[in-house]
């Protein structure tokens, strides 16, 4: 685990900002406030199929959050390698929605434009969205081609035998097709984006003692939900 970088009982501006964005996200998770109840048992880490390849284990991640180390989390590989398998979530004895928390952390990292240890995940996500926006349905061929063109040309060529097999078995649509209601879908997306922006949190004045359990408790996630 990374060493604490700040003076005890104080919170840096960056940390305060990150916590605020993250906790706003957590509020959108049903039962998200249970993050407060972690007992550090490690069931999540022990169950996770990819924890061996993470730099921070899921249990450590919650500990770091409580210790006021959001930046360490933002810079981790962990949030990007999570496979969304939900095993941690179903096994956590405290009912913590760890997978959804991973999503919230990803969103926070993207919003604050952290340089990622695994940029390929964001590249794939962005291409996926571009694809969805353009056609309304995913055209896997286009997605994979564009992805490997950006990431690794050698791999793109390496995909040729597989692409051939898929072509032979009629498992490839050569060209993407737009859905009929493409424009209506675009309007939905545009509006949802506007709403998302409207909801960006107002900056809160943080007091220096907002660290650790205090920070999590003070924010009263539950009571804020109704406002």
């Amino acid at each position, binding site marked *: 685990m990374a060493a604490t970088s700040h003076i005890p009982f104080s919170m840096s501006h960056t940390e305060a900002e990150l916590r605020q964005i993250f906790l706003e996200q957590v509020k959108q998770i049903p039962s998200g406030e249970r993050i407060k109840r972690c007992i550090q048992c490690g069931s999540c880490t022990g169950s996770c199929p990819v924890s061996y390849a993470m730099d921070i284990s899921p249990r450590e991640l919650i500990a770091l959050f409580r210790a006021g180390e959001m930046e360490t989390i933002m810079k981790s590989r962990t949030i990007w390698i999570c496979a969304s398998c939900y095993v941690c979530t179903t096994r956590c004895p405290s009912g913590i929605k760890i997978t959804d928390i991973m999503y919230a952390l990803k969103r926070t990292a993207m919003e604050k434009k952290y340089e990622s240890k695994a940029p390929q995940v964001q590249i794939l996500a962005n291409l996926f969205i571009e694809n969805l926006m353009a056609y309304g349905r*995913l055209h896997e061929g286009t997605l994979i081609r564009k992805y490997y063109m950006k990431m690794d040309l050698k791999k793109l060529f390496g995909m040729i035998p597989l692409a051939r*097999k898929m072509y032979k078995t009629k498992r490839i649509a050569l060209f993407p097709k737009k859905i009929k209601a493409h424009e209506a879908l675009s309007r939905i997306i545009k*509006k949802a984006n506007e709403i998302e922006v409207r909801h960006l949190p107002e900056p809160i004045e943080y007091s220096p003692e907002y660290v650790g359990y205090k920070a999590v408790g003070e924010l009263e996630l539950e009571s804020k939900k109704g406002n």
Partner: protein
Amino acid sequence: MKYAYYPGCSLEKTQRGYDESVREVFKALNQELIEIDDWNCCGATVYMSVKETVSLAVSSRNLALAQNMGYDIVAPCSSCFTVLSKTNRILNQIPEMHHDVNEALSEAGLNYSGNTKVRHPLDILMNDVGIETIQKKMKKNLGGLKIAPYYGCQIVRPDKTFDDHENPVLLDKMFKKCGAEVVYFPMKVRCCGGMLMTTFEETALKLNKELLACAEAHGADVIVTTCPLCHFNLEAYQNKINNIYNTNFNVPILYFTQLLGIVLGLPEKNIGLDSVFVPVGKKISSLIMA
């Protein structure tokens, strides 16, 4: 019964074997699937990690279309199934979000109540249709074919759905009743890595190697799947795994609806058996021919 069918993007083409077999099996069991007209991509898990309101609005459009048809929605793809179910759960638990999503949907003249039920074909076949009906229509007994039932992650998690999180049994039950021997397969709900095959290939290859090794060690003739992503990883990357790990896997991978289609005596072509990458092997071939 009638259902609103949501095939999802991967079933349209790359996983046509799943789509074709679901449609044919439902038809054979007198269940009507009506494809939702002009459905859109559910957004999958990738989209969930980017913008929440947007991703919920995008998946809600499909739920709203199904609601207007008046039927439960059937989503065979595990990822679609989870995304749509999750959308329902969030909209029902967080009223502000429900309101926002409807505000976005109204741009397309739609409104969603939050009440469309999201179902998986396995749930419908076992709980609505029932194994007795399936047995009555059974044309071929699987004759002790050894199957490894692979449920993957997202039809049994995160919510309590229609089977157990840790030890789901519906596939086991279904195929036992059709004469198969279900091998011990402790990795039945272990993750295949999903999209990690694209973003963290090494890690995903290792996960899939372990799955194949487990099935092989227990003598499975075939791995039976319920998810396009698991299916693709296990099937299309088997060669690569063999090259990297010096293994010799040659394990056929079939969708559960394809195997069920064989049991129901449906023509091979109609259930996409002409689209498999790993040959189905002697035992299954002779079943098809029988």
